């Protein structure tokens, strides 16, 4: 049956970015996010935007998919803008009674907003270029070391894998159940909040019944095949680092260094840039 719903954000492709090891991608994305919070002035943001732009270009994912995530948090972006604009102290630009917009506020608002936008696009990039299954594999691997502090990484990964496998099934079930109840007159789209909540019952009950029936069958099937849990299990596709992962890692380190040391670098480059600028001005 044709399904109307595809889960996840994955955009199929064969780019370099698509082929990177998921563990590396998760770490790189984390580094990018941390770096965003380490940026001290607008030059840093230029570096970040440039870096992000390069990766987007290499991934060959159309820009409009990147921007979808922004639609979702549109409200927060507005909030960020507004709050920073009005709540930052400094030299006033306009005064509206008790509240004022300051130059610093405007500057702040713009950059906090930009930071948020870059953060979302960076995260989107991860989900757009990595299949959900690969993401879970990556997470399982990364959580592995935490076994020492009692985190049952393998069991969690197993649950993740099973859940992923059954999400499409349950989505279909939920869809079917919703449609069947709609055909019987249940209304989910209009009416008071209370009414809509009550109409969740005809969906939740059958959904749970289905889900747990599937779980029982699954458990039986797994036990029948002697599944015993985590120790010593192997995978069909083991994650392996390749040369391009090393290259990506190095580039990320370079990026991070640039961001952290940005102000020092700028200070060192200033004289050269200044003379370049004046030469250009003289030539024109």
């Amino acid at each position, binding site marked *: 049956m044709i399904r109307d719903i595809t889960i996840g954000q994955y955009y199929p492709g064969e780019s370099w970015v698509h082929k990177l090891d998921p563990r590396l991608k998760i770490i790189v994305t984390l580094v990018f996010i941390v770096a965003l919070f380490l940026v001290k002035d607008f030059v840093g943001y230029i570096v970040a935007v440039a870096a992000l732009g390069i990766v987007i270009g290499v991934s060959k994912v159309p820009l409009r998919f990147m921007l979808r995530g922004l639609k979702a948090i549109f409200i927060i972006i507005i909030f960020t803008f507004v709050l920073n604009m009005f709540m930052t102290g400094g030299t006033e630009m306009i005064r509206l009674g008790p509240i004022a917009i300051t130059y610093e506020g405007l500057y702040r608002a713009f950059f906090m907003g930009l930071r948020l936008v870059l953060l979302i696009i960076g995260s989107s990039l991860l989900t757009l270029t990595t299949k959900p299954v690969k993401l879970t594999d990556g997470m399982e691997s990364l959580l592995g070391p935490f076994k020492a502090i009692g985190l049952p990484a393998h069991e969690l990964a197993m*649950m993740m894998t099973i859940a992923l496998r059954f999400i499409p099934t349950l989505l279909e079930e939920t869809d079917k159940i919703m449609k069947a109840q709609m055909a019987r007159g249940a209304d989910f789209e209009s009416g008071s909040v209370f009414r809509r909540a009550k109409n969740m019952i005809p969906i939740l009950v059958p959904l749970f019944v289905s889900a747990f029936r599937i779980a029982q*069958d699954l458990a039986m099937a797994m036990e029948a095949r002697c599944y015993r849990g985590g120790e010593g299990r192997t995978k069909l596709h083991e994650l392996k680092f390749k040369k391009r992962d090393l290259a990506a890692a190095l580039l990320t380190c370079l990026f991070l260094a640039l961001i952290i040391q940005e102000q020092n670098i700028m200070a060192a480059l200033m004289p050269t840039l200044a003379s370049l600028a004046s030469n250009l001005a003289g030539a024109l």
Partner: protein
Amino acid sequence: MEYNKDYHTISGSRLKFSKKPSKVRFAAHAAMIAAVYVAVTYLIAPLGFGPVQARVAEALTVLPYFTPAAVPGLFVGCLISNMISPYGLVDLICGSLATLIAAICSYGLRRWKWLVPLPPIIVNALIIGPMLAYLTGEHGMFWWFVLSVGIGQVGSCYGLGCLVIITLEKYDWIFE
């Protein structure tokens, strides 16, 4: 469908099946709860993200009242939800941890039915609130975020959550 919990001992043979509660069944239950959480998040569209968090899936945070499998189940469900959403990594870490802690607390409170929806409200307010405040820049509105997240949660966790408890109670054989 009946699930036979008691295995037979075949007398005279060397084969003896154990009677211990099945780890596999626990894992399967947890995985299904995770899958239901993600399905609900995606199909019954969330009413928004951000300062007013009111997602229908939050009503499922009362599930620990019915089964301990809901604790890892909700955690994994939240992990996956965040993995495949565009909000991404930050919410993945904070949001999922918040869900886990809340689920553990809810399970601990399971003897007092009407207290079960409380942990998600408090934990989310105290973790997601600061996260949002930090993300949007330092502007001193910290407590405002905490408060608004908390209020948003009350509707879904308490309101819908209690509805879920009342409804599923009649069908508690599902969780056997």
